[in-house]
């Protein structure tokens, strides 16, 4: 685990984020401030896009814990990025349900549209493409997460459309891309199509 060239020399929370960090620390009883390590890492990631070593050291100092303890947490959870990512972090799920529903096509489309492989950032620093484990949206498989939003029920075409929209600077509507509402059946409801109460009265 060496210090990579992309590791910045220093890190500081912006006043706005520092305020939020203090609010998180205040949620825990005195002496238990270390419990705030995960939200603080998340704040650092929201501020910088990723968690640098300098950020971990600042957090360790704020919470009075050893830097290695912070690094353990940051490396345990894959949601913390330990190296810089693009403005849009595209995370494609390839676990079993997504794979069965065609995530291979989604992956191929994403790679083709962005022109990068998994783990890489586009040259303009706009996109990073990652392969991730289950994100808990199997009912809408296949899916991908772009920053905080889920794009679901993807096909090769809709994947391309979503990513192209981001490229143009638009923000496509999150959620199912095939017109479905949430996780309702794809062809519309098949049960409870009419209201029927006891006694036959509507």
């Amino acid at each position: 685990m060496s210090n990579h060239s992309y590791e910045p020399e220093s890190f500081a929370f912006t006043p706005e984020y520092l305020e939020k960090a203090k609010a998180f620390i205040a949620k825990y009883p005195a002496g238990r401030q270390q419990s705030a390590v995960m939200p603080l890492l998340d704040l650092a990631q929201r501020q910088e896009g990723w968690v640098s070593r300098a950020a971990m050291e600042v957090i360790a100092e704020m919470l009075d814990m050893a830097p290695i303890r912070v690094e353990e947490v940051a490396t345990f959870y894959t949601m913390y990025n330990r190296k810089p990512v693009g403005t849009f972090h595209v995370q494609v799920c390839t676990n079993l349900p997504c794979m069965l529903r065609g995530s291979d096509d989604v992956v191929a489309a994403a790679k083709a549209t962005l022109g990068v492989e998994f783990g890489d950032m586009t040259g303009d620093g706009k996109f990073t493409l990652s392969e991730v484990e289950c994100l808990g949206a199997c009912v809408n498989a296949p899916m991908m997460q772009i920053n905080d939003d889920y794009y679901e029920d993807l096909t090769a075409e809709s994947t391309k459309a979503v990513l192209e929209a981001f490229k143009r600077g638009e923000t496509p509507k999150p959620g199912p891309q095939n017109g479905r509402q949430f996780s309702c059946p794809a062809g519309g409801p098949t049960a409870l199509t009419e209201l029927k109460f006891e006694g036959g009265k509507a």
Partner: protein
Amino acid sequence: MPKLTIDGREIEVEAGTTIIQAADLLGIEIPRFCYHERLAIAGNCRMCLVEVEKMPKPAASCAMPVGEGMVVKTNTPAVRKARQGVMEFLLLNHPLDCPICDQGGECDLQDQAMAYGSDKNRCQEGKRAVPDKDYGPLVQTMMTRCIQCTRCVRFISEIAGTPVLGGLGRGEHLEISRYVNAAVSSELSGNLIDLCPVGALTNKPASYTYRAWELKKTESVDAMDALGSAIRVDTRGNEVIRILPRVAEDVNEEWLSDRSRFACDGLKRQRLDKPYVRKDGKLVPATWNEAFAAIAAKVKAAGTKVAAIAGDQADAETMVAYKDLLAALGSQAVDCRQDGAKLDASVRASYLFNSTAAGIEEADALLIVGSNPRKENPVLNARIRKRWQKGGFKVARIGHKGDLTYKYEHLGDDASILKAVAEGKHPFFEVLKNAKKPALIIGQGALSRADGAVLLGLARKLADAAGLVRDGWNGFNVLHTAAARVGGLDLGFVPGQGWRDVDHIVDGAHKGDIQVLFLIGADEVDMKALGEAFVVYQGSHGDAGAHRADVILPGAAYTEKSATFVNLEGRAQQTRLAVFPPGEAKEDWRIVRALSEALGKPLPYDSLKAVRERLAKASPVFAAIGQVVPAAWGAAFGAEGSLGDGALVSNVDNFYQTDPISRASKTMAECTAAFGGGCNHKHKKTGTHG
């Protein structure tokens, strides 16, 4: 207290005991990798699975507290099958490189694989490889062998108090690693090697030089610091290969400081292996008789103008022999305090670590004066940290401000603060006074100052005023750094009434009032100040003393003789001969005996037994081997007077090199270069370390 049955045997244990602890009490062996009785419970290796009646699944016995009426079975087919399953997983990624692994032959995993391992591998995939980490010059890493028991992580965080190791990544990618901007520079890092149940962490200086089964093991006592840790000296032929700690609950538990463990390569370097006599300004090899004759000629001319200074690793037998020899020559100018510490030999309690090492765990308030326990005695410091971790322990320090691995209140570094505390004018006085078992540690850094006696007097005053000495408790502690010191004071290796102490001996040598000076392994004396005096150096290493000497008498190091040392608690302990002294070097007290013959004043003892009887006459302490002989609080000690200027600092600057042996050690020199004297775990590194 719950009663339970393990393998049909009933036992009653305290509530909160785990099954594995209860089984250990019964002598029933349960295999384990992650569990260690001195570390927090992790429960992650799963090797200790047992069957508990009415429980649907096997239970990890290290983490399962006992319950009333529990029926545990440790040796059923189901247990064996469960452990075999665990072993199969442990071996999935473990390389089978036992033939070239230094742990081979003393490896827990190897042993357990013999019992629970399969002869076949069902796994088709390749094994994972993990890059090795840089843990410094002492600990060799082979991280592919790691089974992630996390003992090292827990030790370095809990016991050593320098949390720089951790498990990074998860699952298949979990690696035990060092924090990249911190070195593994704990003064206790060698213990990681003992704790590691596999060959992931091994002895770097000794790597690939031995197989565990070809070493001869000699149980002995450490003389590299004043604690006198129980050690095992592993030798092959006439070479010390490594030094390991032994379990001694009252002394070192089972830890050993890095200097005590790794300075052993210094035993092979810079050795004095034959007598030398200075002729025309040059030291030339001589026979024993020539050396003795040269001394005899000078001693005859000197009359009573002879003196002796004992060094930090002089054993009690040698000191008593020198004391008797000089007395026969008519001189009582002997001193074992080569650093000039103003210790008072007349009141035994004034120079002991009275609370005892184990007793410090009972203290509830502690004041450290002019000492850095972490550098001066890391194992003892780990005890203080252990006490601190339990909570309800207020520590304050007068002296240098630095990391001691526990939190303390820094009162300042001026000696006047001790005065204020002693006179009750400082708030910490109330803390000590109101504590149930208050303690004080005063270091050699304070006592070896010019006003050391005044500081000792103030410490005594504080002890009386704050009630450091109470029924069944004596919290007055002197932290020694020299293994020889307490033994020397106990047998009275101090100047007789009206005779010169160490400062005046050096002064006398300079002015010609001391004509013959015996240095018994004393290398910290200012050699340039010895003037024209005829210096006889008896010791094991060619250090400062040997360079100044006119005659060199080659002695034995602590691994090469059976010798008595009294540790800082006042516990007399004996080393054992593990290897023979090199060349013509001899056991030290025998040299004195032979010298006495040459000087025409033969000493009245010819055997080790007789010398020890003489020692027992000097002090009953030497008759009670292995036991702490407590000291009565007794008369007042120390002096009154004005305090000097200057901050209180520790007398140990570089933990790794404090004595002739560690100064001759290449390993210790590497540590000095890498860690800069210890206590420096925030050491920044650049480039691609690790």
